[in-house]
């Protein structure tokens, strides 16, 4: 198995340009170095690849890169970041799940992929948290329900009393944005039409242009417009109030059972030796404590959620069950693809 990988890489490397050749042979050498069995004392044996299932530039990518930069020192090995976008991250996540369990290949997990996406797509396209060794939780990225300031809608009361039908923009099918709004409006008995957009930025643009009445987007994206007074924050969907938006109530406070946040974690394939996981945990812990990383979280309005890996797996499974129960209870259907 190791042998074949090595040969294939070497052939590819010889055929390609000089720079690529150097990069890949270096890589091939490391793979060979770990044989015959993954030995925890020799970890890390060369660069530890961090796979990100999203395009460069998004929140997941920014978090991954900030972590990689600050954890590679404590780990004593470079942590190159590789983007493999596709299927909301399921592609990269599945690929790392099937990689050799030696700690050399890691992936950033998005909670929505495990707890929310399965409510919208077919079983073959989903992933299970049990198939991963979660190293540590990373942070929490909150969703906020916003209206265009010109509409005058500022609170949940304004919405329920308006007695009209609302078009609400979501960041896509099977996302936290869609789930949170669908559940909220069902519980508040507000008549709404779900209008999916391809991500947060187009959804916000549509709201700013009054193409839709409401939208739920990630806080970092909405904040500049909230500060400029163009958007009114109505509720945040986190369990507790968000530190960056302390005056906005949570949906739970407003009386609705809709706790939805985007959590992220870093994971290795199932079966990674305990000693390797511990070493990785320690390195990421040091990264979390570093000043540049703390400043990064603040700038991007992420709330640290540096929860122990085993707890992450439990929390996410519980969330998945809770969302399933809520959608059944309120008759919310995220998609017909499941």
């Amino acid at each position, binding site marked *: 198995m190791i042998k074949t990988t090595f040969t294939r890489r070497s052939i590819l490397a010889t055929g390609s340009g000089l720079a690529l050749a150097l990069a890949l042979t270096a890589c091939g050498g490391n793979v060979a170095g770990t044989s015959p069995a993954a030995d925890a004392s020799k970890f890390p044996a060369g660069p530890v690849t961090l796979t990100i299932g999203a395009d460069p530039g998004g929140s997941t990518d920014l978090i991954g890169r900030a972590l990689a930069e600050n954890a590679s020192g404590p780990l004593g090995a470079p942590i190159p970041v590789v*983007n493999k976008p596709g299927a909301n991250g399921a592609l990269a996540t599945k690929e790392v799940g099937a990689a050799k369990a030696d700690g050399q290949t890691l992936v950033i997990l998005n909670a929505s992929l495990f707890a929310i996406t399965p409510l919208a797509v077919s079983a073959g396209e989903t992933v299970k948290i049990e198939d991963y060794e979660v190293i540590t939780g990373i942070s929490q990225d909150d969703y906020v329900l916003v209206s265009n300031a010109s509409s005058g809608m500022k609170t949940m009361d304004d919405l329920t009393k308006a007695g009209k039908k609302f078009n609400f923009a979501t960041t896509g099918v099977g996302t936290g944005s869609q789930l949170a709004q669908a559940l909220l409006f069902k519980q508040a008995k507000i008549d709404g039409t779900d209008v999916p957009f391809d991500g947060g930025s187009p959804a916000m643009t549509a709201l700013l242009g009054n193409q839709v009445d409401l939208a739920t987007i990630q806080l970092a994206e909405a904040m500049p417009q909230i500060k400029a007074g163009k958007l009114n924050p109505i509720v945040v969907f986190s369990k507790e109030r968000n530190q960056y938006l302390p005056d906005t109530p949570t949906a739970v406070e407003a009386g609705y059972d809709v706790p939805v946040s985007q959590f992220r974690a870093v994971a290795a394939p199932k079966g990674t030796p305990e000693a390797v996981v511990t070493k990785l945990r320690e390195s990421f812990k040091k990264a979390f404590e570093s000043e540049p990383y703390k400043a990064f979280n603040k700038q991007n309005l992420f709330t640290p959620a540096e929860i122990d890996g085993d707890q992450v797996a439990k929390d996410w499974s519980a969330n998945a069950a809770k969302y399933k129960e809520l959608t059944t209870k309120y008759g919310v259907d995220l998609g017909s693809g499941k």
Partner: protein
Amino acid sequence: MDFLAPVINGFGVVLEPMNLLYCLIGVVIGMLIGVLPGLGPAATIAILLPLTYGVEPVTAIIMLSGIFYGAQYGGTITSVLLRLPGEASSVVTVFDGFALARQGRAGTALGIAAIGSFFGGTVAIIGLTLLAPIVAGFALDFGPPEYTALAMLGILLVATVSNGSKLKSIIAASLGLLLATVGRDTFTGEARFTFDNLSLADGLDFVPIAMGIFGLGEILYNLEERHNKVQAPAKVANVWPSRKDLKESSGAIGRGSLLGFFLGILPGGGATIASLAAYAMEKKRAKNPERFGRGAVEGVAAPESANNAAATSSFIPLLTLGIPANATMAIIFGALLIQGVTPGPQLVQNDPELFWGVVNSMYIGNILLLIMSIPLVGVFVKILRVRAAILAPITVLITLIGVYTINNSIFDIWLVIVFGLLGYLMKKFGFEPGPLVLAFVLGSLLEENLRRSLLVFGGDAAGFVTRPISGILLLVFVVVMLLPLLQKAFRKVRTTAPAVEARHHEKEKV
């Protein structure tokens, strides 16, 4: 003079040696990645982001934006020389650019493209300087119904850009529309034509399709041709565009720049539609439209000016509204946040030095690019002197590596090969590849926005006509569709009484 003071201050910022150096580094990197097929500006900027942590925000953004517009210059080179469009916005450049290269006039094509890009970029920067806050509102008025109308117009224009049989163009375009439906349904999560393959869940990517159909398909076709007749390597003459070429393309450059500026402000497919519309407009205006696709300089000048103008004007929504218009802008948005600068409606007031520094750096960057690209044209054109037996395998290799680097995906390499075979067969049987690729790009834009509009309207399609912008766009759509019939009618009139002026007038409307 209150208005001019911050603008002039901005020039002061750019002319600091550190900023000039970073501007130069940015445009050089941009041009290089533009030449390499595959690796796009978005990925490059994301990878280089950490390098900018240590410098001033304005310096960082000057470099990152240099990468972005530098890539637009570089991307033309592979479109013209190797028929490999790196981005959707340079697909139409391929038609005449590559035809010119085969006639030994690659230098002319590249020179005109560089001049057109410079002019388009400059027009857009002046527009950005003077009009940014006013035109920004225009982007917000473009909702799903307007995009639907724009995509319909775009698909109609696709039929006019190709030469050859109309029926075959329509067949190719239909295939493109069909390919656009592959992937997870963005409204219901339903898997469409994915055959349970996760790599297809997000649908097919533009780059592997364009590179396969244009690049690999062309190479395969040429290999076959060489068996039939010995083809001498293209002679390379006139590296510099002649005065006649410049004169012929000056109008196209001007019109392309203006069109590109306005369409570039729209989030989403602005630059692609701009280049397509600019090309179609030139072809419609031309006295001999049949020259297009066979090496018309205007066919290179118009789309290249348009896509560069669009690239520059796509900064307007970001810097004035805080809305990223495309993937690259989204990353620059992230870069600004990391620097502690919040892009949004208050940026111009709160950070005038940053705003004007970045805007003015584009003037300098465009001049740098023009100075660099004109002499480099001669160097790049020498590529064509390499024998096909050597050039072809190298091109294939670069293409496959380039495609792999985008998503780090082996699957994409297979896509290039499959679409390469398709491109070869299409060419062999006389189908134009252009309509397929363009319809593919516009197809998903049309479908998503049509469905989104109907959701917003509550199922009532009358909204398309009653909203002013979408109504006007649909009217233009109808006019363009009926134009051939009208022209026929006028031609009949002309046989009895010359009605040249009336006919001319009719064309102006488009």
